[in-house]
């Protein structure tokens, strides 16, 4: 599903060079729910950006769903993001001027679906996250948990092969966080691969696999002990 081989990413400013990822390698199989943890500055967010094709990298090979996406053009990468990846952000990143329906609609528009198809998908996915009755609400009229559910719905609407979640519960209280985690687990159990970046060990425990990043490299990977887990989940 996802394969990174010796990926390196360097951030340069006038004075400093930061090696955010160095010879970073990892494999994620279809249907896995991977939690990526690590101290701040370890390269978690860089990994997420590269995995989500939000950033390019200096060297190495990244294969997504079997095809090499290392050196795609900007437009191609947009299309891949749109079709194969769903994003869930820590601060939800809902568009404040658009209501719930229009927010979920955003990736579908870029996908080029017909109006009826979009409507069907939006309604069904809002049903899934339990917000079917809130289509006309603006983000500011929703609680944090509800906003994140809209964001999840938006990520799911395009039926992506895998979800990238960046601290999905970081801005939520414990109760809401639990319900969001339950939702993600449910989604994973329906077959969507999930990679979740978090600093919270208790959240990481709920994933089927844990990867610990330190200094831009994978330093621990729980897949050794739980090799059978993906099959079980699938």
């Amino acid at each position: 599903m996802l394969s990174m081989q010796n990926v390196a990413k360097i951030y340069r400013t006038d004075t400093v060079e930061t090696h955010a990822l160095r010879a970073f390698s990892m494999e994620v199989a279809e249907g896995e729910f991977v939690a990526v943890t690590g101290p701040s500055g370890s390269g978690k967010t860089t990994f997420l950006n590269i995995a989500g094709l939000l950033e390019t990298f200096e060297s190495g090979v990244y294969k997504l769903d079997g095809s090499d996406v290392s050196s795609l053009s900007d437009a191609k990468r947009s299309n891949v993001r749109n079709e194969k990846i769903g994003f869930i952000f820590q601060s939800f990143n809902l568009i404040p001027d658009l209501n719930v329906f229009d927010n979920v609609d955003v990736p579908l528009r870029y996908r080029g679906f017909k109006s009826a198809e979009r409507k069907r998908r939006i309604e069904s996915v809002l049903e899934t996250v339990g917000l079917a009755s809130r289509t006309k609400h603006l983000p500011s009229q929703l609680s944090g948990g509800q906003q994140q559910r809209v964001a999840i719905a938006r990520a799911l609407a395009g039926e992506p092969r895998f979800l990238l979640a960046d601290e999905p519960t970081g801005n939520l209280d414990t109760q809401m966080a639990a319900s969001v985690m339950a939702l993600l687990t449910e989604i994973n159990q329906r077959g969507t691969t999930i990679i979740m970046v978090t600093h919270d060990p208790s959240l990481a425990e709920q994933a089927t696999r844990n990867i610990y990043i330190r200094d831009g490299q994978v330093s621990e990977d729980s897949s050794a002990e739980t090799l059978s887990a993906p099959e079980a989940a699938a």
Partner: protein
Amino acid sequence: MEIGPIWRALTRNKTGAILIALQIAVTLAIIVNAVAIIQERSRLMARPSGVDEPNIFYLSSIGFGDDFNERVTIQEDLDAIRNTPGVVNAIQSNSVPLRGGGWSMGLQTEPGSESESSGVAVYFIDEHGLDTYGLELVAGENFTAADVNWREPQAVEWPDKVLLTQAMAETLYPDGFMEALGNTVYINGNEPMTVTGIIKQMQAPWNGWNGVERVMLVPQHTLFGSTRYIVRTEPGQRDRLMPEIEDMLAERSRDRIIRGMTTMEETRERSYQGDSGMVGILIFVVSLLTAITALGIVGLASFSVSRRTRQIGTRRALGATKPAILRYFMTENFLISIIGVLVGAALAIGLNMWMVQAFSLTPLGWYLVPVAMVLLLIVGQIAVLGPARRAASVPPAVATRTV
């Protein structure tokens, strides 16, 4: 990218959009009306004076002193000017078209003070007049030397013959200007004059007069103390001959002053100075205003882009390509501009109706409004291009940045 969500997002952030739309609206109203005025003035300025403007200049000779003989001086001056190589012809006359000052009388087709008379500009010429001014005789015949006599300062008598312009002939004989030929018209109520010829076109000295093409040519030299010579030169000779003739006339007699050496081209320029000044200012205003409005669009769009950076990043992360982001901002501007130009069209027409009433301007041409609308839409699109491109270059990774 469809309009629906852009429009709905716009309605949530009305104020900025309304300000831009209003700005575009007022700009359109001003531009349309300014261009209407420019057109009106240009039309006025484009009217031909009827004379050979590029090759004509004129000057005044003012005699003083007791031993100054005006009659002899005029005859000798004219002979000398006409014999100067490069001069086509020359006459003494009271004025030239566009000069601003001149003589006007009233003509009527029936004698008596009860009959309505029509105002007409008077030029005193001799048999060289048509050639000097470069006028075209469409019917009848030119004056002969025998027709020309001398007019004293306070004279009230008029000669027997007169030439009229086609426009004046038509004013007197609405059935057709040819009717005038050979007919008798009356000056000063009951003094008869015979129309012996018709001139195609010539303007009166006052370009603002609504009867500007109503002119009569009278075969007389004037003895008014101050006299004006009109000189027509061969093409290209004018500038050389002007100082030459001025010097020659000054040399010929010490008892007079030569002044007011002016070309027809200068006269036209001065005559329309107010109009061309107005046109200049309005062109400046129109361009400046368009620039200001464009800058306003740039400013507000830039701000809205920087305020929406995260949103743009999110859209990019969700799969928007760069062109899609570009299109988003262009479309947004287009929607705002459309409203602006629609309101502006109404405003422009209203303003014009009011100005037509208050300042007797001519109503604007119907096509000006749509042309200006399209133009401003294009200006808007060009103005927003910069900020929109900046928006398109927002990296998608902005979405995951924690601020």
